């Protein structure tokens, strides 16, 4: 019997995460393009009534799905892509019908916006943006003049502060320590640190000791518990985006998604099959398995 108090167990279900989100919030979504996106949480969001969101994302199918579902009021991004399929069909369609307001910024400006928010700074000076139409389409962007001898005029990239961040990692413990085992951390730790609340879904929930078992380097522990509100175990929770080394991108399924997204009738059929309003993550995984069986 130990007299040490137990640390707080932060595990929850995707539905419990979404129940904490409200319409009108600013939500950050981790990952990059069609890589390690918290898709299980996005799917849960799509089954909820939450809407009118400001979404901050290095965009992939998370943005495609939320745009198709009419949940986005404003999008802050540098791109939206499926990687192996360069253009996201739902995002294209939404933009071409003027479905939401876009704050289009450069990839590095985006990163500095996250750094500013995580460091509780109002802005960070960046060179990027000057001379480009990023300044034209974001008339609210201001510049600052260096107070030092160089006197350089730079863009004051405002902090990308968010109400909630959603990220997906390979492993996590119940306390909210999250681990990535792939080659790239993307910006998931910054998303969590830039947000008031952060929810980490993971491929596998493990004991804390198991995170570094077998000599796994501690620098894979990307996200720390002090910046995490909730932990969700969702095997395949990044599907159909990649989550290496647990699984690569499901290219056949992504192709089917993109083909369906390009045609309203096909999309109605696709979403009824894979994303029904009364479904859950388990029924999604079963529907995907059945679909793969049919393709053989």
């Amino acid at each position: 019997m130990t007299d040490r108090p137990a640390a707080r167990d932060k595990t929850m279900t995707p539905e419990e995460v979404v129940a904490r989100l409200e319409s009108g919030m600013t939500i950050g979504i981790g990952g990059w393009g069609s890589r390690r996106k918290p898709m299980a949480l996005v799917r849960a969001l799509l089954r909820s009534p939450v809407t009118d969101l400001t979404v901050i994302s290095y965009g992939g199918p998370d943005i495609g799905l939320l745009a198709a579902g009419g949940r986005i009021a404003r999008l802050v991004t540098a791109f939206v892509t499926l990687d192996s399929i360069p253009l996201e069909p739902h995002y294209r369609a939404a933009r071409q019908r003027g479905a939401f307001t876009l704050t289009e910024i450069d990839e590095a400006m985006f990163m500095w916006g996250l750094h500013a928010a995580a460091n509780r700074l109002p802005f960070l000076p960046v060179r990027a943006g000057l001379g480009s139409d990023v300044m034209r389409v974001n008339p609210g962007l201001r510049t600052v003049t260096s107070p030092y001898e160089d006197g350089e005029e730079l863009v004051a990239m405002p902090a990308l502060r968010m109400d909630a961040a959603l990220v997906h990692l390979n492993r996590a413990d119940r306390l909210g320590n999250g681990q990535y085992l792939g080659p790239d951390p993307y910006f998931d730790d910054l998303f969590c640190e830039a947000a008031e609340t952060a929810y980490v879904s993971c491929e596998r929930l493990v004991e804390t000791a198991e995170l570094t078992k077998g000599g796994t380097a501690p620098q894979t522990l990307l996200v720390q518990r002090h910046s995490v509100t909730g932990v969700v175990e969702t095997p395949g929770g990044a599907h159909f985006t990649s989550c290496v080394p647990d699984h690569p991108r499901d290219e056949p399924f992504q192709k089917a998604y993109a083909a369906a997204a390009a045609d309203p009738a096909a999309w109605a059929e696709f979403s009824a099959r894979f994303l029904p309003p009364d479904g859950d993550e388990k029924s999604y995984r079963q529907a995907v398995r059945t679909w793969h069986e049919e393709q053989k």
Partner: protein
Amino acid sequence: MTASATGSATRAEYCVIACAEVWRGNGEVLAAPMGAVPSVGARLARLTFAPELLLTDGEATIVGPDGEAEGWLPYRRHLTLVTGGRRHVMMGASQLDRFGNQNISCIGDWEQPARQLLGVRGAPVNTLNNAVSYWVPRHSPRVFVERVDMVCGVGHDNARAAGPSATRFHRIPQVVSDLGVFDFGTPDRSMRLVSVHPGVTVDRVREATGFALTVPADIPYTRTPTPAELRLIREVIDPSATRDREVRP
């Protein structure tokens, strides 16, 4: 016209050579190619006349010519490397204008575009911080336009107008297309024809360009790949001929 022997090199292989040449003499910088032909070109340069170049595996690892890892370059470090200037990227362009402004974001009105493309991506940070060349696999007046619809990559006129912070590290060495090679070596820093690939006439380049191009009196052909370079391209770097899918042989 200075004629030169074309040997048996295809158009795609001339394009590979032209792309490889953009990294000549760059020193120890990351060669960041976008597209199949620039990727083959960067690896060719690394294997021949520019062994000091850094290359990635397309993900987060810096690799040598045989694929062995020699560094870690996830996106956040890649962006630092961009702003530090130790990089020469060869980007694509949906539109490119006479001063080197590039667009990959959207066609038409930005508020509600006729065609939404990728988005600005890293073009603004790239162009202000490290050398940016461009690769256009299908040279046409739809790509080479008078004015781009959305300035993503910053051209010479816009950099100048934005002031010294914008011009300080701004550099657009070359543009390579399936027809020829171009630079901005004119008094107003507008585009100039440097060479045409064998089989291409200057008139054809003019017709395929939607703005008035500076054309010097004597235009050479793009240099011919050596037999050793051709062997590397065909047998070592690109045996599956990805180059032919971008530029028909």
